[in-house]
């Protein structure tokens, strides 16, 4: 009982205290670095009117986050739409795997920022560029995990399908997808995490609107407490996205529907 209280309340409180202490020390050492109190007061101001809209470049924090989320989901949806079929194909066909694998291995480690100039040149549009960069960097975990899920279908299930003479279509929907769906969701969860990382960097470079742009803009305004607020909000939103994906993933995982 006592131990539990220490674990759930005392320890996090202690850590919070240490964090604030370190932060305060840094704020004292570096002139102009916002203190925790200043940041807290600024946060209240920022959150008090999150929806204001004074035209391009000057909008409330909720609108900035919302426009970032819109781009993230655009690229993410595209990555799902392309990644799952490609992953299924690679998982089911040795030939497809051999054909795709070198490109996946080479393109996967490319930084999103390397794609950005090319995308800007091609699309000449900030939204399209952001969506494309998110698509091209977040599609890999979806492809790889989907293929992994397909390959994890046991031979016994495939034999059941063969004895029943299931068509290729029936095999995919009745045998392969139920096994692969938890893997696909793991891929989607990783992918969404990447997308949220990428959007901030992309918006800093493209400008216009979005949480990444906002942080960079506040840097140029010498408004450093807003940078810290931006970091905290990005973290919180990322955490919420991950939790939601986790919930959805568990819902589609037959192993977690109240049984082992």
């Amino acid at each position, binding site marked *: 009982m006592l131990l539990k209280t220490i674990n759930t309340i005392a320890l996090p409180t202690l850590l919070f205290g240490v964090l604030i202490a370190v932060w305060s020390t840094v704020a004292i050492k570096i002139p102009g670095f916002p203190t925790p109190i200043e940041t807290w007061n600024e946060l209240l101001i920022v959150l008090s009117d999150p929806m204001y809209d004074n035209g391009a470049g000057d909008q409330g924090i909720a609108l900035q986050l919302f426009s970032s989320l819109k781009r993230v989901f655009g690229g993410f949806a595209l990555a799902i739409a392309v990644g799952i079929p490609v992953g299924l194909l690679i998982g089911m066909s040795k030939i497809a795997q051999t054909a795709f694998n070198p490109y996946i291995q080479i393109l996967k480690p490319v930084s999103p920022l390397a794609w950005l100039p090319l995308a800007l040149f091609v699309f000449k549009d900030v939204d399209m560029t952001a969506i494309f960069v998110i698509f091209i960097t977040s599609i890999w975990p979806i492809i790889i995990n989907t293929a992994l899920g397909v390959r994890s279908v046991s031979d016994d299930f495939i034999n059941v399908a063969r004895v*029943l003479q299931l068509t290729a279509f029936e095999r995919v929907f*009745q045998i392969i997808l139920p096994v692969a769906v938890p893997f696909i969701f793991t891929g989607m969860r990783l992918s969404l995490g990447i997308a949220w990382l990428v959007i901030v960097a992309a918006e800093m470079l493209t400008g216009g609107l979005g949480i990444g742009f906002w942080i960079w803009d506040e840097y140029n305004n010498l408004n450093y407490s807003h940078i810290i607020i931006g970091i905290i909000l990005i973290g919180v939103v990322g955490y919420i996205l991950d939790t939601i994906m986790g919930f959805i993933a568990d819902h589609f995982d037959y192993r977690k529907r109240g049984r082992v």
Partner: protein
Amino acid sequence: MSAKPFLNIDHVDKIFPLGKGKEYVALRDVKLEIRENEIVSIIGHSGCGKSTILNLIAGLDTITKGVILLEDREINAPGPERAVVFQNHSLLPWLTVYQNIEMAVKKVRDDLHPKEVRDHVMRYIDLVNLDHAKDKYPAEISGGMKQRVGIARALSIEPKVLLMDEPFGALDSLTRANLQDHLMRIQMQTGNTVIIITHDVDEAVLLSDRVIMMTNGPEATIGEILEVNLPRPRERLALQHNEEYLRCRGAIVEFLYSKFAKHDD
């Protein structure tokens, strides 16, 4: 035996390529004729090729030489007229007991109306006495129950031949005895032709009309065939001291542990 056998395994070889030009001759010149409604068990030491024969009959693996005919039609692919009960039940874990059977019935009996499907599925769940568990998932029922569902699923598609690869191998001896009784009762009702692979001498004698004894691999083949002349229904207790039962048992033990004893592994 009628002029034309129901299932005819005709001079079958099975050779597994091992790569680098090497190969493993698992089966050599296997010939066996099986009558309709017969229960045949195949017994032999581990690795002799029992599963290999069963997979060839199921069409899950390809024959290297020779031919297998079911009612004079050559077997070259899997099909629902040769249902398989797998050793590890192979139930789909995301479907309930009912849905596992329903899925097979819907696919194979596409002539049935939805209402008839339900009756059909329930008839086979009933046959293995699992009405109370029909809405449970495989993870929620015991190993013996899972194996019964596997049997019900195989029977529900009304196969000509029921192929069972050590169906009770993973079960404790009490559950095993219970399932053997289930199987004999069901076969009396349905009149299925059953081929069952086993390691267990008593199981072979109790269940079978004939016991096929295999020699050891490589180049394994059928060593002896034993007729079990015991009337049905058979009762395990009454058989304990039955002369014919003991004779059959003795013959199999003699074959496995004297004539074709396995000293390695």
